């Protein structure tokens, strides 16, 4: 008996729980030469904003130990161009398409959501209130429960499609933000976005990122992501999508055991472009070997005490 990897995020059924994280998989087809993208549970696009954005000054990335910093600054083609040019290549793909959106005001979130959600190839919206790399919106919104509730409420009014709200780890109490997002109408939460970080070149005495601080991702942050998920699982009852340093199927299973319904891999793609498929295969094998017929039987099954 092979395991059924199907999972549900609100009204959306995914064929498996492995998604790509926003900003690390382009507009969904750039890795098509490396593997069959239709094998994924879903893809999450780069964040789309109302107007096109060039992004932050260079340099925008830096490697750190078992991690990387980025300060891309939501560089994207803008909602109109996205709808006109980027959705078409996704038509033939047999996988869920989730569009990540952001704005610099609740109003802008609403506007971009209205534009994007209307398109039938869009299966769900992921609302990014957690980007550390922009001055307005982004992280500032995601650290305040009131604004979080307001932004989510506004986006909620634009669509009946599943609404995922993406949370930042850069807060004292992630559960307060999680609850606010659910109150605003989120069908699911995804966490974590990147952790605020920095690196310095000691020869030039300049920060490695032009914008000084950026977002840390990769294996380094996996323990942080798991702890935030662990806290959030106990605070809300909507499905959660685990993100942060997932590089292997073992990593993905850690998140599922703690309570994630699905996972997103980001930095992984840069290290191993076919890594997401290996995660799907690995989860399958694990379940088959252990006689697990359905992921729900291990989701949130973590027991007490040390390993």
């Amino acid at each position: 008996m092979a395991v059924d990897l199907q999972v549900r995020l609100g009204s959306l059924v995914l064929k498996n729980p492995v998604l790509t994280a926003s900003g690390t998989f382009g507009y969904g087809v750039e890795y098509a030469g490396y593997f069959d993208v239709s094998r994924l549970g879903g893809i999450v696009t780069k964040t789309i904003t109302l107007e096109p954005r060039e992004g932050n000054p260079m340099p925008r990335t830096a490697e750190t130990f078992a991690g990387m910093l980025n300060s891309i600054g939501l560089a994207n083609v803008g909602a109109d161009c996205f709808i006109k040019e980027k959705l078409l290549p996704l038509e033939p793909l047999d996988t869920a398409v989730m569009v990540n959106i952001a704005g610099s005001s609740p109003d802008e979130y609403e506007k971009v959501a209205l534009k994007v959600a209307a398109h039938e190839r869009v299966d769900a919206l992921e609302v990014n209130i957690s980007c550390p790399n922009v001055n307005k919106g982004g992280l500032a919104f995601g650290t305040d429960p009131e604004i979080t509730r307001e932004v989510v409420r506004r986006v909620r009014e634009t669509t009946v499609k599943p609404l995922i709200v993406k949370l930042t780890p850069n807060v004292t109490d992630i559960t307060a933000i999680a609850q606010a997002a659910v109150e605003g109408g989120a069908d699911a939460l995804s966490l974590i976005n990147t952790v605020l970080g920095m690196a310095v070149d000691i020869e030039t005495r300049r920060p490695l990122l032009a914008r000084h601080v950026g977002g840390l991702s990769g294996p380094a942050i996996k323990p942080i992501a798991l702890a935030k998920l662990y806290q959030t699982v106990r605070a809300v009852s909507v499905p959660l999508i685990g993100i942060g340093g997932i590089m292997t199927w073992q990593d993905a299973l850690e998140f599922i055991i703690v309570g994630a319904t699905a996972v997103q891999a980001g930095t992984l793609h840069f290290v191993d472009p076919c890594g997401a498929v290996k995660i799907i295969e690995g989860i399958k094998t694990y379940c088959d070997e252990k006689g697990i017929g359905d992921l729900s039987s291990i989701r949130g099954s973590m027991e007490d005490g040390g390993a």
Partner: protein
Amino acid sequence: MKQHRMRLIEQNQPAPGIMRMIFKAPDLARNSRPGQFVQIRVTDTFDPLLRRPFSIHRTHSNGTIEILYRIVGRGTRLMSRTRPGVRLDGMGPLGNPFQTEGNFSTALVVAGGMGSAPAFMLIDTLLKTGKSIHFFWGVRCDDEFFHLEWLRSSGVELHLACERGDTGHQGLITDILEPMMNRYPDSKGFVCGPKPMLEKMQRMIRTFPIPWEVSLEEKMACGVGVCMGCAVRVGQKIQMVCSDGPVFDLREVDFGS
């Protein structure tokens, strides 16, 4: 554009601090063009995490490819300790090649420092087109030159410069290039090297209207155009070095400063 398990056949040191790796990677060797690059994963563990981009230095009909690299940091240091037999994971060929076809009779190939890495495959390719080739090669110290005999015997016109040492002009390669450029009106230029040299070249060629292609370097994460990490302004537009480049029109590049 694929992932390859490249078997390291040989690693040697053509010049102090500079290593050459020869891999068996038939697919990659067959499909690579000069100016393209490969993103190499230097370890199975997650430190260092990201792949390292290297120009394809040469390819051979026996299915081998070469890269030439300077040991500058943690990744290249690890690479320099890799022994023959080991397989490294390489993604490539990535990026867009130099355009070696066209109605020009002379190719001016200008390389500074590690710019010699892509220059050799470029020269290999140009040699097949029968164009005459002038190779302007500048280094810091003249022990960084290699393959000079082979270049000469292949009919490449060599112009060498070094800041320290006795070989060629004592100074920058642009010093010798500048007064000579106008001799070759029916030519096309190809440049690769450190940013200050490229900026200087951009100023120099203002009044010399042949086409000039440049290969740029930026820090990279993905190497395939998804992370938006390697942005550069070219002709008013933001372009990604990895997927829109690394080869651009030298005149259009905005070096920022």
